[in-house]
């Protein structure tokens, strides 16, 4: 496992405290008892939760995630924490926010929280997106919950003043999320949906080829769709473009301890396991396997 973490020395460096005496030790990951500020539905499927948190948590970077201790909905307390990408993090306001879809026991419990309630969030966790200052135009392609994960790229790119084109895929137009947020940071937003049958790989490939042709795609950022990821891998290979993908996997510890979240990756032709929580969740686009 240490080979792995070695490979991540940079990403996880701030975590290292070697033999620092207790007095000096400062945790970089905390189980933070945040206070819910808002927890509102944004559409039929998604809710937006904003919480005031510690400075450590508020420093979460795009692509990183938290492990949320979801309150019990009904009698049963979900035992494990639930991973959620940071949707927004504001060190000034000391706030962190999540955009989540109600799936099962944990997210149901999450939906019950109201302003003033306490939510235990552990993080920030994992390796987030990296922006190469050399890039001028980036393209974010996402679907479903993946749109929540990509969203904070909009602000980060603007700060690094890169132009962003966001291709947002959903089943129906009214299920698209994060589009407003992308626009608010001046991104071009292209919405593709199943109901309008614009979300197929072929059409998305057409859109992406156009962006490349227009010189508006130095790098791909994607999350939430294996099919769309494969389209981007193909184009990245063809035009030797950079790319990063945020992966999902069931998690227990979120800190690289348990090895339940491994996926196969192609590292220089060799198929190896990587822990999504620790080596990722953001990986090099070309190393990811569907």
């Amino acid at each position: 496992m240490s080979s792995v973490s070695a490979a991540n020395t940079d990403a996880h460096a701030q975590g290292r405290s070697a033999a620092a005496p207790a007095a000096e030790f400062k945790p970089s990951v905390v189980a933070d008892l945040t206070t819910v500020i808002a927890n509102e539905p944004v559409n039929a499927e998604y809710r937006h939760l904003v919480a005031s948190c510690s400075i450590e948590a508020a420093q979460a970077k795009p692509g990183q995630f938290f492990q949320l201790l979801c309150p019990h909905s009904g009698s049963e307390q979900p035992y494990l924490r639930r991973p959620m990408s940071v949707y927004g993090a504001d060190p000034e306001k000391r706030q962190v926010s999540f955009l989540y879809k109600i799936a099962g026991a944990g997210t149901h419990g999450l939906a019950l929280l109201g302003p003033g309630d306490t939510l235990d969030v552990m993080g920030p966790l994992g390796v987030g997106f990296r922006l190469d200052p050399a890039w001028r135009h980036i393209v974010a392609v996402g679907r479903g919950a993946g749109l929540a994960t990509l969203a904070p790229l909009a602000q980060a790119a603007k700060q690094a003043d890169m132009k962003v084109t966001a291709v947002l895929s959903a089943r129906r137009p009214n299920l698209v999320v994060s589009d407003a947020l992308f626009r608010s940071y001046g991104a071009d937003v292209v919405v593709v949906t199943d109901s309008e049958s614009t979300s197929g790989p072929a059409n998305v490939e057409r859109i992406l080829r156009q962006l490349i042709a227009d010189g508006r795609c130095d790098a791909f950022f994607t999350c939430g769709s294996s099919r769309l990821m494969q389209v981007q891998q193909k184009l990245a290979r063809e035009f030797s473009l950079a790319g990063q993908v945020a992966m999902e996997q069931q998690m227990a510890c979120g800190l690289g301890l348990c090895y339940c979240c491994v996926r196969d990756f192609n590292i220089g032709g060799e198929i190896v396991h990587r822990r999504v929580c620790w080596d990722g969740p953001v990986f090099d686009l070309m190393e990811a396997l569907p």
Partner: protein
Amino acid sequence: MKVETSVDLAVRVGGLTLRNPVMPASGTFADGLEKVMDFNRLGAIVTKTITRELRDGNPLPRVVERPGSLINAIGIPSKGVPDFINKTMPHYAPYDTPLVVSISAPTADGFASLARELTLPGIAAIEANISCPNIEEDGKAFAMRAETTEKVTRELRAATKLPLWVKLTPNTGEMPEVAKAAEAAGADAVVVSNTILSMAIDLKTFKPCLGNIMGGLSGPAIKPIVLRHVFQCARAVKIPVIGCGGISNADDAIEYMLAGASAIQVGTATFVQPAAMISVLEGLERFCVVREIPRIADLIGAVDIEESDEPDVAWLNPVT
């Protein structure tokens, strides 16, 4: 908040004196926890079990949760011995906390040669995870029976001078006998225990929830069971018993020490509260202060059983 006290937290465990009785359970600890706690506060560091062979581990899904518990079938992904020696050991070297390496092998010989190779400066003790399948006994774990436990422990003992901890499985019906066998063969301590073999089925798909079909149950749900095993083992052997099973807070740890544990390991609880080990440690200190217990070692086996309470044979298997 660290409690400033004069409580003596040191315990002697299987050939080592630990600064306190709190350590991680194998497989639930890695360098990632450096983001959460100062490893110099722990009584010991116990690494994920390693094997000589390189292993990928089990098919996914590898975990499923149940109320108050986790079922896991991670398998033992292992990068092998050189990776451990060249990367894991140097990584923990800066800490002045004893490093305990957990090992496993499919044969008694395999255990012995692995122990021999890992008898190195920088390793404080070897924890032999003999809850794993013994291919010489068509897959039954060594720790399922006293004979196989005695054999593997004897070979391990001959192979290393390091303190030898033997980790038992609660899936056997004869744990006290197994503990006695480990003691007789020269183990310095027994760890009680590993997970309890369990299963879960998905009602949507009718498929097992785990890629491996079955897995090991851990977490709060198993505490009363493993506590009983610790109580029985501590009365069966003279070597220290290290308690491990469902410990989430200081009260759990105290219950284990009262039952006879000389030290305790925290596993799954770390997944829910990453700083669980630290709060257990601080809670132990507080408890001793409040109850005016000068040495935490005074708690070991201090459960108050008047002879009158001593149950007849029935208590071995109470007819409920």
